[in-house]
């Protein structure tokens, strides 16, 4: 990034620092919130977890569904011109909170929108946003989620949530479970001891 040029322009000074800060922050709590949501789901839905253990090829499809359902990011945009939305006009220059997660539960777009369907094949979700400012890190986020779930399930196929009361959520623009303590099921723990 220090040396890259776009159309002859280079990032310098505060612009460079601002972009580096954005990449750092945007690449951390977003992905771990998505991953902790995925882990919470797999810990509490043994039928989905066992299906992914049996069919690892389904994991990329499952990642998309978990992103749709547990969309971790809500962002703000500023209108560049007056926007007519239903009966409301949003004037130019207003800040608008875009709730991608709500769009991802649109029943006209997603049958059984409030259900996780782990092999949902038609899944035009916008957990990474849409338009010119869509998430720049979506490809690496997808890769991280896929690899993390594959590797975890390969080593620890059976696990469950320790104490549901202990799950706490981060809130604000980046949403997800902050703590997901999991344990081996009693039968597995007994077999290992």
């Amino acid at each position: 990034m220090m040396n890259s040029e776009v159309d002859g322009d280079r990032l310098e000074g505060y612009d460079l620092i601002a972009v580096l800060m954005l990449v750092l922050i945007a690449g951390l709590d977003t992905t771990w919130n998505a991953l902790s949501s995925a882990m919470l789901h797999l810990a509490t839905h043994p039928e989905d977890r066992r299906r992914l253990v049996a069919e690892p090829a389904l994991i990329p499809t499952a990642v998309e569904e978990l992103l749709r359902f547990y969309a971790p990011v809500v962002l703000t945009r500023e209108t560049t011109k007056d926007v007519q939305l239903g009966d409301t006009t949003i004037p130019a220059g207003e800040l608008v909170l875009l709730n991608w997660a709500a769009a991802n539960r649109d029943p006209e777009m997603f049958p059984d929108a409030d259900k996780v369907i782990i092999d949902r094949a038609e899944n035009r979700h916008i957990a990474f946003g849409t338009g010119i400012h869509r998430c720049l890190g979506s490809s690496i986020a997808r890769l991280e989620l896929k690899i993390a779930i594959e590797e975890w399930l390969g080593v620890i196929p059976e696990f469950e949530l320790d104490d549901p009361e202990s799950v706490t959520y981060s809130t604000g623009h980046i949403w997800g479970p902050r703590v997901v303590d999991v344990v081996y099921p009693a039968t597995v723990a007994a077999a290992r001891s």
Partner: protein
Amino acid sequence: MKVSVDPDKCQGHGRCMMYDTEIFECDDLGYAHIRGDGTVPEADREEVWFASLNCPEQAITVDESA
């Protein structure tokens, strides 16, 4: 069957590339385009439909009649 990508709509999410890299490829900036003239071989039909149905920008058009 033919498929096309609208370059004005594509934002480079890359979901089409997850389905079929025989048909879709991306440029250095990650934006998708079609290899060849867009004719879809029989073996690629299903993947191309899924690519179209999963594109967040609705940038992929499938023409069954072509």
